[in-house]
């Protein structure tokens, strides 16, 4: 029995390292939790897939009507429905991811108090499951592109890069909020407001080029700016986000790493508090 693993359980004090090896060891659990979320989501509501298509589509219709037609928001020479839908795609991934991951730890209190696994899996799995909705919504987008005579270019191959960035942004925010949410239960009530605020601070219904130059740097501190402008660039051929991306990526990485450490620091009390 030379390979008998030895486990040492000791009091946990202060900051804790992020054990990537252990996360990797539990990858099947991550897979099954995502699988469960998707299966339950599409089983419980007959509308499941329809809803995933309808929600962004209706948003696009409303935005096109008010911001596009009545207010005539500058759209860099692109049909407004395409212009807004290209932003709604990553926005939904982000907002759904943040909302679900914030509640992820509390909602799985029955697991957390009964079985051990790396707790990071909870917020991680809840940002991944909205990807199916993204898939459906994206199919609609391809349809729209052809409808408006705007066939996708080769740049569409970069989609995974920006999608990943949207996911990581959602995870970074979700890590912070899910851990805070365990300790402070009123946090979840502030989420709808936070998401709404963030929505208007991101270039979903307008273009970031509408902002004065002097504001650009400050504006790009919001990592979703880089993600959304990136989506528009690869899907619609608008100006590439350029140097804004560097700021966005830096901010995201700082938030992600600090969020992961904060999560690890607080997770020891999860089982006692949830």
């Amino acid at each position, binding site marked *: 029995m030379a390979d008998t693993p030895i486990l040492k*359980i000791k009091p946990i004090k202060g900051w804790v390292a992020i054990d990537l090896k252990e996360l990797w060891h539990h990858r099947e659990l991550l897979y099954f939790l995502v699988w*469960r979320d998707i299966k339950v989501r599409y089983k419980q509501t007959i509308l499941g897939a329809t809803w995933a298509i309808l929600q962004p589509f209706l948003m696009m219709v409303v935005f096109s009507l008010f911001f596009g037609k009545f207010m005539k928001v500058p759209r860099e020479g692109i049909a407004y429905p395409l212009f807004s839908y290209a932003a709604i795609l990553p926005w939904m991934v982000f907002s759904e991811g943040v909302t679900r991951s914030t509640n992820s730890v509390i909602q799985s209190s029955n697991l957390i108090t*009964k079985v051990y696994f790396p707790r990071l899996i909870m917020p991680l799995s809840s940002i991944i499951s909205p990807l199916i909705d993204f898939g459906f919504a994206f199919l609609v987008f391809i349809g729209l592109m052809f409808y408006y005579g705007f066939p996708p270019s080769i740049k569409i191959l970069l989609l995974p890069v920006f999608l990943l960035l949207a996911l990581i942004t959602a995870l970074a925010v979700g890590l912070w909020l899910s851990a805070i949410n365990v300790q*402070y*239960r009123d946090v979840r009530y502030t989420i709808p407001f936070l998401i709404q605020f963030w929505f208007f601070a991101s270039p979903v219904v307008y273009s970031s080029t509408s902002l004065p130059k002097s504001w650009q740097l400050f504006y790009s501190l919001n990592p979703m700016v880089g993600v959304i402008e990136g989506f528009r660039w690869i899907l619609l051929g608008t100006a590439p986000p350029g140097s804004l991306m560097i700021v966005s990526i830096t901010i995201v990485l700082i938030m992600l790493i600090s969020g992961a450490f904060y999560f690890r620091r607080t997770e020891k009390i999860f089982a006692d508090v949830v």
Partner: protein
Amino acid sequence: MIRVEKLGKLYHIGEKTPYKTLREAITNIFTAPFKKLKNGLKSKEQSLSYIWALKNVSFQIKKGEVVGIIGRNGTGKSTLLKILSRITPPTEGYVEVHGRIASLLEVGTGFHPELTGRDNVFLSGVILGMKKAEIKEKFDEIVAFAEIERFIDTPVKYYSSGMYVRLAFAVAAHLEPEILLVDEVLSVGDVAFQKKCLGKMGDVAKEGRTVLFVSHNMPSIINLCQRALLLKAGRLEKEGSPKDVIQYYLDTVRSASGQIVWPELDKAPGNDIVRLQAVRILQEGIDGPTADVDISKEILIEMSYWNLREGTFLYPCIRLRDGVGTFILTSSNHKSISLTEDSWSGRAYPNGLFKSICRIPGNFLNEGLYSIGVVVGKDVLNTQILLEYLLSFNVHDTGEMRKEYLGSWAGPVIRPRLAWETVFLGNNEQ
């Protein structure tokens, strides 16, 4: 092998909720300095809201040993298992575990009602620490063990509770860790299935696996375990052979006074709906509570409890066990269960103190040691308080049933008077 060294866990038994609100936290930042000024030296009081759920616990478990942990509710048994399964970290001390460990603190961990039995086997299996390939390999065996082949593709929300438990346990029973931690899970399911599970547990033990087993079921501890640990108020009170430890435990539980009273409401067992006030054993002809009763007379179990939420439908219930912990009976004041009609049964309780009395008939129990546990439930089956082994009492044979037969009555748990009738069928052999 498990080595536990001076293990301790400090819990905050805070005011109403263990968690705070951000709003409070922010206002605290501003008001805290003033509060400190106001309270001055009072800050010592705060340390009272902490409790050592475990303190200075040390023991070793050898490879292949099956060890039972016993003790009253709230003595740290579950905390110990939670620390060993890494659900919560200890406050002090350390544990060294050699070998893969799996814990079974609940039946059906990770089950989702919307998913089918098949889906749940995989989900629950992975959550409990199995690999997907491993579950695939054992899938048929798990389904056969649970005896639900026909319903494996039905969502578990349509399962009866028995089917649900069988499937959940079947998954757990096929875990193959080197060390298994089990908490009280055998107390569910029907008798036949319980036996099957006990058998499976016995097999696990025979295969040389290490098992740590928390239970109120003393006979199963005696049957399964080679050693037992007794926890009392977070400390390791005694360890040794299961028989010795259980005997010692029941002796210490036996309160000579025949009553247990919680004078302070906020320290009494319960929650913000109901709290216990006292439990007493009484008998006609004896002044006050008693731990020694006459076999031939009625035994009165009296429980007093506070209803703290206007309009709650409460019901009291007792649980009777014999000297080694065999569950003998449970009874409540529900209309169809009670022999007499209890005027408060099925009625909304106003706020206040209530006293319920359950009468165990005379000439029903055998002589010997018994223990009483109580339950207070809400609505139909919503347990609010459950305390096992709360009080124990001795039934003494006074000779009422001993006018003809003078031999030993040892063995049977109960000794009721039953109706007998003999008929002379004649002396003609044809």
